[in-house]
């Protein structure tokens, strides 16, 4: 680990106070730069970490999308020969694993990291360095998983057991490549990242709200993200147990899934789905939260039924724990178990329905602006409804026996995952882009992006309902003519390429808009006339977020600072955003210092992973990284004593908790590295 010295610390752009501090060279020197690519490796700023999450997730999104396209080329016509059975099985597995664990989850994490502190008026998350650690562990785990596609030959060592990896099919006998080892270890690594992040963000939400920001004044998005973190907190350990058993079974010949020795093959399914179903809500609740921010803004009305929105989110979070066996209706569970899970599954539709109707009610009577973020948000409402309704048809366990493991299910969950989640995340991208980067994405390209994606997704996933009812099973690498599958498979493939065009448009839009932005006036703090605190600060926000802690007096604080009521109860504007917003030019705020150690610790984990697969000696190397990193971490105060240190008025400063915090961080990470 090369330690580079950059003596100047710049808190904000054009910071005149930036002090030059003499620092000794050595292992314990803090990194200080806040600019340049190196600063991204050591940053502990929640906003930059959010951007890193988003960027990494977008790259994985492209990768997972290419995998989807490869599958659709293979399946466009009967008896396709584009992929062999071996390759196809790896490709569909990696598509699922990538999209769930490396795209949807980190994209939600991007929003959570970036927006939670801003929406609750905090200066950063509770544990900035742990936050950095989460990201680097996630990235390491993700790259570790993806590397399985290249190491030991092109597509010969990737997991080939499906993202659900049912046992004993994922055992050494039936899956002799190293792929499932990558799966078991890689997902444990990303799980550690999610767990640390969940702890961090829960503490942030509970402990670091600005004055007056009671729990029930938090924006719906923050609420949904908080529920998500709770789901992660409790769901991740369950899959970790499963992966742990799987890893031991594969690497050390443990008997957990050896049916001949008396093992229960359904144990894995239970552990997987006890995690797997809350996981669905882990993915979808952030998107619901985003929609709940976008729709009120572009309807120019407050969210309809705030408390119903919040409580239905909490209810979904709770009920999500009681429905997992609906993935196992055909697995031979007793009819009473099936009946109980069937009922709980049907009724989870109720809180979801409440959300849909409340969004519609928010729009009703509003002044609707259908720009790109709004279009995506409205698309979530109707597309997710399709996914939810088809979900009701297989909540009926008997009917599900005709649908399970067919393309009908593939259609159902893609309407949820693409229609609900990806559309929601794109709404979020377009909505918060000006806040994060200081320029709006181009509206024309945005609408092109939207229509390509919405038409593409309906072409792709709509006909899958028909294919499924016609009896086409999932995870088929090929199909024969004569089963009535030809026409719709071709349509599906065309749809998939349409989606790809949409995503391409988005990427083009990013670069195009950035170039154009130089010619346009700055977007200002509040380009959409929004409602929550993040719009009260400049775009992009200053490093320290808020110049002064904001006193919150109610829901939608920012909006209420701009608007009031006249004597007739009519809404009138009495201040512009610019008048209300903070300037962000304060330069004396004490910020947590960057740190090398998160990335050092995180680097160790994939090395240990490779070691477990290939040579235990590598584990020692990886272990050294982890131990060195933790040692350095423990020695390092949470805040650099040499950094500019004048004022302590910001909320969320670790202050004299620093020592305790670092000790805790040490203990928790040490443990997790053992778990992993």
């Amino acid at each position, binding site marked *: 680990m090369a330690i580079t010295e950059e003596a100047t610390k710049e808190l904000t752009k054009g910071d005149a106070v930036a002090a030059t501090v003499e620092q000794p060279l050595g292992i314990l020197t803090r990194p200080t730069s806040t600019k340049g690519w190196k600063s991204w490796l050591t940053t502990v700023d929640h906003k930059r970490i959010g951007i890193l999450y988003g960027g990494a997730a977008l790259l994985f999104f492209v990768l997972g999308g290419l995998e989807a396209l490869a599958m659709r080329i293979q399946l466009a016509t009967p008896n396709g020969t584009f992929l062999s059975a071996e390759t196809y099985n790896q490709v569909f597995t990696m598509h699922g694993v990538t999209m769930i664990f490396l795209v949807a989850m980190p994209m939600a994490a991007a929003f959570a990291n970036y927006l939670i502190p801003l929406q609750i008026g905090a200066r950063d998350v509770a544990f900035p360095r742990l936050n950095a650690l989460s990201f680097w562990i996630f990235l390491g785990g993700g790259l570790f998983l993806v590397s399985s596609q290249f190491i030991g030959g092109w597509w010969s060592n990737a997991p080939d057991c499906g993202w659900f990896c049912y046992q004993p*099919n994922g055992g050494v*006998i039936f899956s002799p490549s190293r792929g499932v080892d990558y799966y078991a270890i890689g997902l444990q690594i990303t799980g550690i990242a999610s767990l640390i992040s969940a702890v961090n963000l829960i503490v942030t939400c509970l402990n670091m709200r600005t004055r007056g920001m009671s729990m029930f004044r938090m924006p719906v998005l923050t609420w949904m993200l908080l529920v998500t973190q709770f789901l992660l907190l409790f769901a991740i350990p369950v899959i970790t147990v499963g992966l742990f058993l799987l890893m031991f079974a594969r690497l050390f010949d443990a008997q957990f899934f050896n049916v001949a020795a008396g093992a229960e093959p359904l144990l894995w399914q239970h552990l997987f789905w006890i995690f797997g179903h809350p996981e669905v809500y882990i993915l979808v609740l952030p998107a619901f939260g985003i929609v709940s921010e976008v729709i009120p803004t572009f309807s120019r009305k407050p969210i309809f039924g705030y408390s119903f929105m919040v409580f239905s989110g909490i209810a979904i979070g709770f009920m999500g724990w009681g429905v997992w066996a609906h993935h196992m209706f055909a697995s031979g569970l007793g009819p009473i178990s099936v009946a109980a899970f069937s009922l709980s599954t049907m009724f989870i539709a109720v809180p979801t*329905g409440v959300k849909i109707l409340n969004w519609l009610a928010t729009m009703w009577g509003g002044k609707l602006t259908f720009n790109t973020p709004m279009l995506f948000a409205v698309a979530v409402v109707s597309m997710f409804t399709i996914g939810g309704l088809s979900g009701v048809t297989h909540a009926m366990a*008997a009917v599900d026996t005709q649908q*399970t493991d067919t393309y009908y299910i593939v259609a159902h969950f893609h309407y949820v995952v693409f229609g609900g989640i990806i559309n929601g995340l794109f709404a979020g991208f377009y909505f918060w882009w000006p806040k994060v980067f200081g320029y709006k994405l181009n509206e024309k390209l945005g609408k092109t992006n939207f229509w390509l994606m919405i038409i593409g997704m309906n072409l792709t996933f709509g006909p899958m309902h028909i294919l499924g009812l016609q009896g086409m*099973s999932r995870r088929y690498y090929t199909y024969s003519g004569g089963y009535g599958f030809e026409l719709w498979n071709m349509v599906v493939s065309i749809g998939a390429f349409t989606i790809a065009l949409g995503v391409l448009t988005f990427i083009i839009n990013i670069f195009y808009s950035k170039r154009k932005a130089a010619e346009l006036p700055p977007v200002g703090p509040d380009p959409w006339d929004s409602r929550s605190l993040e719009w009260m600060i400049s775009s992009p926000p200053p490093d320290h977020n808020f110049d002064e802690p904001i006193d919150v007096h109610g829901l939608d604080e920012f909006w209420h600072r701009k608007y009031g009521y006249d004597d007739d109860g009519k809404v009138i504007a009495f201040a512009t955003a610019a008048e209300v917003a903070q300037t962000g030019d304060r330069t004396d705020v004490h910020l947590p210092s960057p740190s090398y150690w998160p990335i050092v610790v995180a680097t160790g984990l994939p090395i240990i992973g490779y070691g477990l697969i290939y040579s235990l000696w590598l584990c020692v190397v990886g272990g050294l990284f982890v131990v060195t990193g933790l040692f350095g971490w423990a020695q390092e105060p949470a805040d650099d004593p040499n950094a500019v240190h004048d004022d302590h008025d910001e909320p969320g400063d670790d202050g004299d908790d620093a020592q305790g915090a670092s000790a805790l961080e040490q203990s928790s990470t040490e443990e997790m590295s053992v778990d992993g």
Partner: protein
Amino acid sequence: MNSRSGRLAALAVLAVVFLAGCASDAPLDSLDPKGEYAQSIDNLFVPVFWVAVVVFVLVFGATIVMWWKFRVKDPSDDELPAPVAGNTSVEIGWTIVPALILGIIAVPSMALLFDIRDTTDLDNDYENLDVVVVGQQWWWEYRYYFDGFDPDVDDFDTPADIVTANQLYIPADQEIPLYITSRDVIHSFAVPNLNGTMDAVPSLYSPWKIQADEPGLYFGTCREFCGLSHALMRTQVAAVEQADFDIWVGQQRQPYTAPDEQLQAFLDAARDPDAEAIEPTTAEERGAALFRSLCSSCHLAEGVNDDLYDGAELVSGAAPNLTHFSSRSSFAGAIFELYKADGSADTNQLEAWIRNPPAEKPADAENKRGMPDLGLSEAQIDDVVAFLMTTGEEPSDFIKQETVVE
């Protein structure tokens, strides 16, 4: 017609196309029930589907209405809408109404669930018949027990009265009890025209049942991902008249008997350790000898190699029982046909299969999953095929015809 009702009409048309799209010529179609259980599932699905369509039309329609009614048409209009923050009674209302709708749907759903899972007192003329369905990489085995099968005591190594593969024979209009299990990984047994899916889980014997109203050939498949050739693990259910079923049972319960005396004598001599070996002279005899020497390591044919066979050299421990091979119109996981639609035998595909099975159907023969390439010469292949074609009574013509999917 304004754009709103136009869209609604388009949506209704879409929904009809959707259901019609399913009804095309698709042998695995779940909306084309041919037996009472599949029918009862269909009877529940279709009305709920329409309820769902109505709900979607309402939600989507509302969105369209709002686009039409509430979108900002004049950007200079600065007036803000009334900030309605909620209405508790409305919200309670739309919490309760969906719950009620779901409650109404739940009643028939629960009833049907217990109904299709109920395997006691099935209506058939074979009082103690149980069929054990064994999923295996990548084909289905069917084991008939005419004196009943007790999953708590027995396992699938208990000798069955009939062991066959790929085609499940049943008498039409009779309720047949199944026990579904697996020898290796999890599979899932689906014959959509006759009933829903039940997973084949190793170590579990999941009770299930099927019934076909009319004689016919019904197609099935493996639903649960089970490795390399999951896509090529199919099956068929041949529902025949009861009299034909009884004949079939009579034939299948017999060991292999050669169609001519000379071949029988050759086999008898080969099977008798004390007898003097006879040199094979015909293709069938050479094929029989080859079958005994090569195929015995995995395949059992009663009356041919039961003296040599001691379990398959596969991770799952079994390969298809070939005693009455040519009485089945399909092979290799029911993906290839043995007869043309006109009823004549077509051995080209069988030859190709024996020539190099992994090329015909992905397998992992190195790790003893699936049939390996045995490296036979063309002459040897012809001999084995000639012998295999002597192994059974040909199936009925309608089965041969319907086996061919075009």
